[in-house]
C-alpha cells in the first residue's frame, strides 16, 4: 500500500521536527547567574552569618526576576514565542521561591534555627532542580543530584562546609551552563 507508507513517512518527518522542538534547554546565562548567587549566598553562612537573611531576601526574588527576563530574551532570540511554556517555568520556580518564604516562618516563630532553614532550602532547591530535570532540561538532573548530596554534607559534617558546598554547587551550575552554551553553539553552526 504505497499511500500508507507515504503517510507514515510524512508523520515520521513531523514527529522528528516536534522532537527537535521539545528538546528543552535553559539559557546558559541563567545557570551562570545562579552559580554566582548560590556560591556567594552559601559562603556567607560561614563568613558573615548576619548577612544571610538580607542577602537571600534580595538575591532570591532578584535572581528570579532576572531569570524570567533572561528566559524570555533567550526564547525570542531562538525564534520561539510560547507564553504557556514561559508560564510553566515561572510557576515551577515561583513554587521554590514561595516555599523558601514559608520556610522562614518557623525561624521567625522561634521553632527552628537559621542553620535549619538554610539546610531545608538546599533540600527544596535540590528537589526543584531534580523535578525540572525530570520534566524538561536533563542537565538540571545533575545539578539536583549534586544539591541533594550537598544537603547530606551540610547536615552530617561539622565545620565550614557551607562555603565548600556553595562553591561545589556553583561549579556544577557553571558546568551545566557551559554545557548548555556549547550545545546551543553547536546547533547554531
Amino acid at each position: 500500500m504505497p499511500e500508507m507508507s507515504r503517510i507514515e513517512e510524512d508523520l515520521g518527518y513531523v514527529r522528528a521536527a516536534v522532537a527537535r522542538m521539545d528538546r528543552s534547554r535553559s539559557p546558559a546565562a541563567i545557570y551562570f547567574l545562579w552559580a554566582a548567587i548560590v556560591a556567594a549566598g552559601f559562603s556567607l553562612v560561614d563568613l558573615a552569618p548576619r548577612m544571610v537573611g538580607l542577602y537571600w531576601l534580595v538575591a532570591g526574588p532578584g535572581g528570579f526576576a532576572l531569570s524570567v527576563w533572561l528566559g524570555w530574551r533567550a526564547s525570542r532570540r531562538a525564534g520561539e514565542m510560547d507564553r504557556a511554556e514561559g508560564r510553566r517555568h515561572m510557576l515551577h520556580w515561583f513554587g521554590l521561591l514561595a516555599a523558601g518564604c514559608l520556610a522562614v516562618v518557623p525561624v521567625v516563630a522561634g521553632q527552628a534555627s537559621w542553620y535549619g532553614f538554610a539546610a531545608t532550602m538546599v533540600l527544596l532547591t535540590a528537589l526543584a532542580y531534580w523535578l525540572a530535570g525530570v520534566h524538561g532540561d536533563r542537565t538540571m538532573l545533575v545539578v539536583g543530584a549534586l544539591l541533594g548530596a550537598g544537603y547530606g554534607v551540610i547536615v552530617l559534617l561539622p565545620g565550614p562546609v557551607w562555603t565548600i558546598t556553595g562553591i561545589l554547587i556553583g561549579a556544577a551550575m557553571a558546568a551545566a551552563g557551559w554545557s548548555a552554551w556549547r550545545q546551543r553553539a553547536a546547533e547554531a553552526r
Partner: protein
Amino acid sequence: MPPKRGEPPVGAAEAIPGREVLDGLDKLLEHRVRLAIAVLLSRADALSFSRLRELLGETDGNLGANLRRLEDAGYLAVTKEFLDRKPISWYALTAAGRAALASHVRALERITRAAAVAPARSEHSTGGDA
C-alpha cells in the same frame, strides 16, 4: 510528470481502504512540510522563519514557498519586527489554520485506524478460507 517531493501521487488516495475515511483531509496540509509547519506552530504562539528552518532542515526557498502557500490560504499570520537590528518574521497559526489542522489530523487518525483494521480483516478472511 512525477509528483514533487512531498506531494501526494495522483490517484494514490485509492490505495487507502474506504474512500469516506479521507473526508476532512486538507489538500494544503497533505504536503509534509506544510503539515509539519502547522503542527509546530500549533505548539507555540509564534515561531520565527529561522527557527522553522532549523527544526525542519529545509532550504530557505522551499520553506518560504510553503509558508507563502499557507499564508495565502489564511492559515498563517505573519508579523515582522527587528531584533538586535536584524529583521525577523514571526509566523503564527490563525483560527482557520488551527481548524484545518484539527480536521486534517482527525482524518489522518481515521486513515491509520482503517489501515490497521484492513490487514487484520484480510488476514481473518484468509485464515477462514484455509
